[in-house]
């Protein structure tokens, strides 16, 4: 049995497409078997809703009168600095940017109440944001200072552009030390007090297409409550990660770079986030549709939490020191049971990624497709797969030569 994306789109146009979520497909395959289910199902929808630090947005602010050249100067949105090293009124705001006067970790653990991710959430909510520009002034752009309110509607372009989202798999973080750790994986209690994980497991986009056979550059997706696209593979994309027999990565694995018009997104799916003692970030909602082009693709999409394995990593010593030590491997089914066994100790688990909201994303995307509002796209280029030989590289430091 094979189908094409064009055939599936025709069925979507007629309102006849059979769409199920990555959770629903599991039961369907159990009941009907892969062959029959693959014939029936046209699209499987996935979802993930978790903190994703390599997120941000670029904006074109419009030209003031007289003109100002923010490029090379300083720009602040609600006191959070944006990157200005581009043309006159284009700026980029990163999710982890912090106000210059944020106390950070001077009083440890810092609270990181407000950063770039929070500004993005406020803009998407339609709020006015305080813009401050300091510039050097030129003959063509004479102005040196602007202070004004702006919002999404007043901008020309407002584009969410996340250079690494939707990590295929992720570490389970624990703490072997004797003091509390404040990390991007949350608060880790001493002596294996808890274990934090952060993927939606069987619902997560890249777990359902482990070899990137359908997801590629140009794939249309659910992004931040609106429509977005896969722009490229994400940074640190690591198709060469260790895999199970069924091809599911047992370590980080692949990632996606995604892009979309911020003006049609929603603050329910882009939430400013603060990690105590670590920093600010953005929680992002992503859902990717998987066209069931063959039995093989359905088999991948029917992956269950029992078949997905994550590494347990110590964030007291191993992670900060970049030691390769893995304390053990656990399945997502074990993680979701509420506790896992590490070093003969029963350790309670917690998730940083919301499974219930991931279900909501997959269900929303399913609804859009069933109603014919959302068509599937043919990828214009594949993501680098296992055959690319790409393996994530660590930094090799080299001493700078002494200046004479």
């Amino acid at each position, binding site marked *: 049995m094979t189908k094409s994306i064009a055939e599936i789109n025709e069925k979507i146009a007629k309102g006849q497409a059979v769409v199920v979520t990555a959770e629903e497909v599991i039961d369907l395959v159990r009941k009907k078997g892969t062959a029959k289910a693959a014939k029936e199902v046209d699209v499987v929808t996935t979802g993930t809703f978790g903190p994703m630090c390599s997120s941000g947005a670029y904006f074109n602010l419009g030209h003031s009168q007289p003109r100002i050249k923010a490029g090379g100067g300083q720009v602040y949105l609600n006191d959070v600095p944006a990157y200005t090293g581009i043309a006159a009124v284009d700026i980029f705001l990163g999710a982890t940017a912090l106000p210059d006067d944020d106390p950070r970790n001077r009083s440890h653990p810092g609270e990181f109440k407000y950063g770039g991710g929070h500004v993005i959430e406020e803009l998407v909510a339609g709020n006015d944001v305080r813009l401050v520009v300091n510039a050097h002034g030129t003959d063509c752009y004479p102005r040196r200072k602007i202070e004004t309110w702006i919002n999404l509607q007043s901008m020309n372009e407002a584009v969410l552009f996340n250079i690494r989202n939707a990590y295929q798999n992720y570490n389970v973080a624990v703490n072997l030390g004797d003091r509390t750790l404040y990390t991007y994986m*949350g*608060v880790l209690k001493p002596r294996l*007090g808890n274990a934090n994980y952060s993927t939606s497991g069987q619902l997560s986009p890249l777990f359902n297409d482990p070899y990137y056979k359908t997801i590629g550059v140009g794939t249309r997706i659910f992004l931040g409550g609106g429509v977005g696209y896969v722009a490229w593979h994400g940074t640190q994309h690591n198709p060469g990660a260790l895999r199970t027999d069924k091809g599911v990565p047992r370590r980080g694995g692949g990632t996606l770079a995604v892009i979309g018009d911020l003006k049609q997104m929603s603050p329910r799916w882009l939430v400013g986030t603060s990690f105590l003692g670590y920093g600010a970030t953005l929680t992002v909602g992503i859902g990717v549709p998987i066209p069931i082009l063959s039995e093989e693709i359905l088999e991948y999409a029917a992956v269950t939490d029992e078949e997905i394995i994550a590494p347990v990593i110590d964030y007291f010593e191993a992670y900060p020191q970049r030691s390769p030590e893995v304390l053990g491997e656990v399945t997502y089914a074990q993680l979701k049971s509420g506790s896992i066994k590490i070093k003969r100790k029963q350790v309670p688990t*917690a998730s*940083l990624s919301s499974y219930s909201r991931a279900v909501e994303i997959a269900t929303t995307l399913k609804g859009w497709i069933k109603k014919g509002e959302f068509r599937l796209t043919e990828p214009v280029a594949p993501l680098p797969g296992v055959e690319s030989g790409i393996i994530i590289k660590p930094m090799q430091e080299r001493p700078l030569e002494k200046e004479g």
Partner: protein
Amino acid sequence: MTVAKTVARKVVLRFPHRLVDKPIIYRLVKDYDLQFNILKASVTPEEEGLLILELSGSKKSYDDAVRYLTGVGVELQPLVKDVFRNEERCTHCGACVTICPVDAFVVNPKTRVVDFHETKCIACALCINACPVRAMEVRL
């Protein structure tokens, strides 16, 4: 004649594992002449002791006792009145589940929605800053 100023305070005490079997509250009575009323006591699965007390006595004794407690390594916080969840903001990720010392947050195994049991909450406020989207708030 001077009248000693008296105080009555509700406090949350957290005992690290090494102090759980030490006679600390006894010394509050013996050495600092404080009265105590136990509102809640538990030892968590991580073997941390948790005690909520109302302490009363002279202001000086109370301050000295606080100094003694923090000196030996007991974490002490005033018992705030009420902790509530901003339902609009909560994303039901579950980061709070293992932070709460009294298991007031429970993941529904079927829906994976995080239920907050306010009646279990002892208002220790540990969840306030541990919540990544800061959905937990203190009502003073």
